[in-house]
Every structure is written in C-alpha cells, then in structure tokens.
C-alpha cells in the first residue's frame, strides 16, 4: 500500500465535498481534506475559517490555528466571528464542514470537552462533576453541529472513542436519535458521515443511528466492529471504499506540503 491510513481518511473526507459548496474548514486534517477536494475535484468549493478569513490558502506550511498568519497572508476579506460562525454557519447557510471528536456515539454526538471517570458522567449522576481529563471544549464545532446543512465527523477509530453514549455532548449530532433534533429547531441537518482511519459510517434515515457503510481496503468489517464501542450495525450493501487514485494522491500531497499525513 503506497499511501497511509491518514491519507485514505483525508481523501475519503475530501470526496464528500462537492463542487460549488460553501464550506468551513478547521485546522489540521480537516483543512487538508478540504483543500485537497478544492484542488482535486471541487474547484468552486468556497471555504472560509471561523474567524471570518475569506478567500485564502495556506502559505508556508499548515496553519497553527484558524487565525495564523499562514492562513491570513493572501485573504481577500477579514471580518469577525459573528459573521462567520453566526451569519454563515449557525444560520444554516453552510453546505458542508468537518469537525473532529475525542469521543463519539452511535447518534453522532461529539465530545471534545472532557473525559470523566466511568460512572461519574453528569448524565449518569445527575449533576455536573469535574472531568478527569479536561479537553478543549467545542470551539466552533457546536455552531457547525447546529447550523451546517450537513457535516462530516473525522476520528481515529478506537473502541474508547466510539462510545455507546459520550460523556459530554459538546456538539450535538442526532442527540437521542430519530427526530430528536427537531425539538431544538436547529437550522442544520446534522452529521452526514463519520469518517475514520478504518472506514465510513452513515446515519440510518429513520433511527439516525450510525451504521457501517464502507471499509477501507486495508481494514475489514470485523476490525471496524471490534474497534467500535456500540453494537455497530452493518449495511447489507457494505462495500470497500475505492482506493485513492494516483491523481488523488498527487493532489493530496501537493496540499500536504509538510507530509504530515504520510506517516503510517
């Protein structure tokens, strides 16, 4: 295999972006996947960052943050957070986005706030307790979760991350499943896929429970089930994700100048 699992994950994520979509990119993997898509098959993909940085592409390496000079050097417009996160994202205008997850559950709820000792989670003990490990909080992912027409969740596929129920919902997916989102009147549609380093999960149209839709050729249905913390349903039509084409790899590596994804 002449590509890394992370490269496959980035390419699979990039494939979910369609030409002409309005998208918001975060830093790291998410930005690489987005700029790969723009270069590879979606030249009219319009992207911005949550600081209201418009029309720019990274200069001198992958940005350390969404406001890093590396992403500010060739912008056509700088506005503000209310514009980007409020008027474009939370309002329901953004077509697609990518968020990360420290923990994720079967309804696509994402936790990036903290990890609790088993049994002490607020939803279990009925009060807010201090997390064992404090994480970074939701940042702008919560606005994407409530507002984006659809969005993608990227996460390393590990049993401890893929929990039956997350310790803390930082960015709501389908909450308790079914039409649970409706109660909150969210402008956005919820997560359309969970893309991991092993395969792709998608939500059931009715129950909104995520099932295994496709696996990467270097993985398998068995490996993915073994690395998922809930009883993962498998699509009757479960299939292998097409391997990256040479063109896709060339375009991804042209974007990933530092080769951060190459490490296998």
């Amino acid at each position: 295999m002449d590509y890394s699992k992370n490269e496959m994950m980035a390419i699979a994520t990039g494939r979910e972006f369609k030409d002409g979509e309005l998208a918001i990119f975060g830093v790291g993997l998410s930005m690489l996947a987005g700029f790969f898509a723009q270069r590879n098959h979606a030249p009219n993909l319009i992207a911005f960052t949550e600081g209201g940085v418009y029309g720019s592409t990274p200069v001198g390496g992958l940005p350390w943050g969404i406001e890093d000079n590396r992403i500010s050097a060739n912008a056509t417009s700088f506005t503000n957070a209310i514009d980007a996160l409020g008027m474009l994202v939370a309002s329901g205008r953004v077509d697609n986005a990518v968020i990360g997850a420290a923990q994720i559950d079967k309804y696509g709820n994402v936790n990036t706030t903290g990890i609790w000792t088993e049994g002490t989670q607020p939803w279990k003990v009925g009060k807010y307790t201090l997390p064992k490990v404090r994480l970074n909080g939701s940042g702008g992912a919560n606005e994407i979760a409530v507002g984006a027409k659809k969005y993608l969740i990227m996460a390393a596929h590990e049993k401890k991350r893929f929990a039956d129920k997350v310790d803390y919902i930082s960015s709501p997916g389908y909450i308790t499943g079914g039409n649970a989102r409706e109660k909150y009147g969210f402008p956005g549609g919820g997560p359309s896929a969970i893309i991991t380093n092993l395969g792709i999960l998608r939500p059931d149209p009715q129950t909104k429970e995520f099932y295994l839709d496709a696996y990467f050729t270097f993985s398998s249905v068995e490996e993915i089930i073994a690395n998922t913390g809930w009883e993962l349903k498998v699509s009757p039509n479960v299939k292998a994700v097409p391997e990256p084409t040479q063109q896709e790899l060339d375009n991804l590596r042209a974007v990933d100048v530092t080769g951060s994804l190459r490490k296998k």
Partner: protein
Amino acid sequence: MRSKLISMEEAVKNYTWDGMTFAHGGALPVGSDCIAFFREMVRQGVKDINCISNCNTQGSNLLAGAGLMKRMEVGFSGLEVYGFANGLKRAVESGKTILEDYSNGAIPLRLLGGALGWPFVPTFMNTGGDQQWCSADDPESYPNTKKIPEITDPFTGKKMGAFKSIVPDVAAIHVTMADIYGNAIMLGTEWSRFELSRAAKKVVLQADYIVDTDCMRQFPNLVRIPDLCVDAVVYWPMGVWPACSTGVYDSDEEHMFMMNSMLKTEEGTKEYIEKFVNSYKTPEDFQNVIGAEKVKALTNTATAFLMDPYRKWIKTEQEIKQLMERR
C-alpha cells in the same frame, strides 16, 4: 481631546483589581490577544479574576497556571494545533478555576447583547447539548434550565435558547495600530473585538504601533474601534508574543511549546514567570527577553505587506517617549 497613552504598569494598576470581570481580545489561541497585558497582571498579582474569554490564549493559560483565575467563561480552552493549554487544564482539573463552557459563536453573541444593552440574546447555539445541560456555577442541577433557558419565539411559538448578555468590567484589547486618543485599526480577523469594545465598561488598548491620527482620517472605515470607546492606550511592541499579530509578526513556535510545557507544573510556571514576566520592565527590555534575532525572524512575516499602507504614520520610539512625557 486628551492623550490616553499610558504605561503598561499604569494600565494594569488603574484598570484591574482582585475579583473583577475581565475580558480580553482577540482571545484567539494563536493570534492577536493582549498577552503582554496578562504578563503585567501576573507580575502585579491581580487575583480571583473572573475571565471572559472567547478562546483561551497563552495569556489566560498563564493567568490560570499562576493560580490567579477564579472563574472562566469560554468557547475553546485549548491552543489549537499547539495542543491543550496546560496551565488552564491544570487549574480546571484541580478545581482551582471554575470553567463555564460555551462555544466560539456564543461568546461574541453574548458580548453583542451586552453592547446593545439587551439582557439576553436568542440562540440555537449551545442548546440540545451539555453546554446547556451542565453548569459549573450551578452543578447540582442536571439538566440545567437556568444557564441557557428555553424561550419562545413570539411570532411562531417555536422554542429556542437564550444566552445571558455579558458586560465585562474591563476589556484589554490588542490592536495593530492606535492613535493616542484610542482610535484603533486591527489587521486580520477582528474575532469579537468590535463587540467587546462596546460591551465592556472600560477599554484598554495594547497596540503594536502608535500612529498619527492622520492615518485614521485616511482610512476611517478601518477604524473599527473609535476613541470614544477607549479609556487607555498602551504602546507595547511584540505584545502578542509568543502568538502572532497579523501584518507584524508570526507566532513563535518554539516558545509556544516551551511556555505551554512549563505551565504544566507549578514549579515550571514559577520559573516561566521569573524568566519571562519578572525579567523586564520596559518595552525595550521586553525585546531583549525575546531576543533580537528572534524578533527579527518573527517580524519577517509573509503578512508584512499588510502594514505597508500605514507605515508613514507610525510614531517613532522617540516621538512616543515625548508623547508620554507631555501628559
């Protein structure tokens, strides 16, 4: 109008106090926050700070790591690609700092509400999840119904959430350029600095450059913070270091990592404060603490061209000294 130019020492002495509600801006982990102002707060030992942060930065990371932050409301508590904020993480996990979670879109809207004199702002953000159901201020009730209460749209009857507006006692705001009256120009994302400058009761600016007011008259549409919102102006070059100021300098990757790893422990934090807080008095000394070569490398930024239209109005160190004395 009188000059509002004062020293960093005076600014912190006059505009901060124990237990105050303090807000800072940019409040972006990698860019344009008033880090130098935070260093002076730590030097003067202002404590029990109730900190309003859009995001954590190395400033709030240091303040929390030094044990001076009683409480924080924040949308993102990390340092982006630079990792977790160890000083803040330690303070939160030990219970030293009470952290009330919101999101990056929530804090600006709550400041907007404060600026507009609204008691609350309607929101879909932070509902249907644990920012709404969990409250560090009111931990016993889960799901919490007071932090982000449910309200009804009077036109459709649909339910949504309400954020409490924020009116900080003081905001310290980094800007790229300011004149001596407080007219200010920001390069790069404003993040929530526009709203913050109107929401806070008092506003102190920390500027990379002091420019002549003629610069403001040439570019009035760039002056997003007018003098009438500002109480004091502090001249402090490299004031965002080790983070970046768009158009002026890049983030100092080496120091960002080193600082954050030193903040992991109390001892490391003490050592950091010795070396990088108590080790200077004047802006000039501060440059030496960073190091001439480092300053040269960081200011060689790909964004430098963004400053070109304004350079002719920049006040020299000499002119600024005179302006300070003239008060």
